[in-house]
């Protein structure tokens, strides 16, 4: 027999039964109570026994289904502190077991354990470095001796802590742990401090007069010699060059005082001097400069006094003739 509507008492009862099972997974509750309303409804229509205690009913369902009785009465606290503490205490062991049960992870763990001293060293350096961030950010001095010493001490202490030495009984584990945490936190600020310091050092060095580039340059590269070719493409000699202000275009700069200039190329040492047609300091803008003959270098491979000179080797024997110049030459 079928009734279309269900007695609200049955709905309430079925809901109470489900409540009494609510410690079970949802699937289990569904398995146990699917169709419960229909069954109860039909039982009531059959003149079955009145609905009794839903909790007892749920217990009977549970027992017959072979499920464990509901855990001890009383709602468990929202956070079981004892359980959390126990889990935390077991967490390292659990993690170790999880890692050790996998060969790949286990190998990585072994590698990391072997590398722990590297971290101890870094930790010592970072902790000492963290104390000097203020100094690093504002100083342009060279690193003073005391800082090197402090860094060394920091490394030694940190490594000893890593080995479990030099620690009070209380805090054997806490002190190295806290030190590691601070070191990790300090890495980024320290990195910024060191970068600031280093860039300031460089700025200091390059602003010094000794490093200011002088003389002729092409795209920042110093020019050591200039070769001029005429309209017919032939190499010119004794060419005097000046800039727009009338200043001589000197490859050595205005302050050069030596009788020759020298340097190194891929082919080795070279030395250049002004031409005989314009000897001395006035000749540095007369091109091409002549080369000091290496045959007359002294035993140290350096130019000797009044070293004889030879013509410098031009990059091209002859350059492209200019179209207009050639025709006018032919006409002449």
């Amino acid at each position, binding site marked *: 027999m*079928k*009734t*279309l*509507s*269900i007695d609200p008492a049955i709905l309430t009862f079925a809901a109470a039964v489900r409540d009494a099972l609510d410690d079970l997974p949802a699937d289990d509750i569904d*398995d*146990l109570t*699917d*169709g*419960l*309303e*229909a*069954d*109860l*409804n*039909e*039982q009531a229509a*059959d003149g*079955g026994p009145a609905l009794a205690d839903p909790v007892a*009913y*749920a217990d*009977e*369902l*549970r*027992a*017959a*289904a*072979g499920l464990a009785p509901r855990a001890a009465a009383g709602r468990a606290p929202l956070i079981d502190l004892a359980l959390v503490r126990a889990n935390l205490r077991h967490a390292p062991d659990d993690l170790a077991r999880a890692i050790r049960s996998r060969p790949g992870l286990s190998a990585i763990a072994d590698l990391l354990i072997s590398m722990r001293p590297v971290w101890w060293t870094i930790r010592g350096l970072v902790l000492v470095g963290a104390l000097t961030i203020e100094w690093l950010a504002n100083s342009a001095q060279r690193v003073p001796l005391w800082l090197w010493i402090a860094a060394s001490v920091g490394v030694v202490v940190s490594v000893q802590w890593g080995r479990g030495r030099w620690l009070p009984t209380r805090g054997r584990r806490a002190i190295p742990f806290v030190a590691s945490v601070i070191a990790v936190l300090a890495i980024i600020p320290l990195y910024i401090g060191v970068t600031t310091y280093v860039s300031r050092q460089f700025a200091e060095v390059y602003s010094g007069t000794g490093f200011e580039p002088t003389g002729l340059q092409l795209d920042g590269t110093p020019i050591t010699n200039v070769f001029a070719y005429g309209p017919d493409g032939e190499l010119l000699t004794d060419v005097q060059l000046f800039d727009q202000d009338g200043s001589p275009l000197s490859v050595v700069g205005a302050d050069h005082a030596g009788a020759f200039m020298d340097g190194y190329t891929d082919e080795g040492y070279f030395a250049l001097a002004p031409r005989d047609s314009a000897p001395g300091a006035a000749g540095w803008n007369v091109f091409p400069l002549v080369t000091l003959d290496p045959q007359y270098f002294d035993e140290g491979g350096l130019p000797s006094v009044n070293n004889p000179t030879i013509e410098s080797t031009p990059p091209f024997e002859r350059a492209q003739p200019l179209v207009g110049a050639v025709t006018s030459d032919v006409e002449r």
Partner: protein
Amino acid sequence: MDTTQLLKGVLDVAVLAVIRDDDGYGYDIVRRLRAAGIDEIGDASVYGTLRRLFAAGMLTSYVVPSEGGPHRKYYGINAQGRAMLAAHAADWNRFAQTMSTLLDEPVAPARVRKIGENK
């Protein structure tokens, strides 16, 4: 005699037996059991047993919606359930036979002589 305790041991077999030929839903199965004379067992026990047999893989289950009313969950026996039913039926028959024989004709306990006791 209160047969509730006896029933608990064989409720699984009883439930399998009443759906051997025909699938049934919860209360339908309760009704079949009662019709067969098993009426001391609570309906919740039957429903729980169905769930356990289903979880053990002895039953199939499907839900049939009913017009206007709540849906019904039907259970049917499968091959594994039939095998278990057959095995339990055989056990039960053997056991019942033994018990019947025992209760009808009490067997005199065999007398065992003690050491040193004369015949």
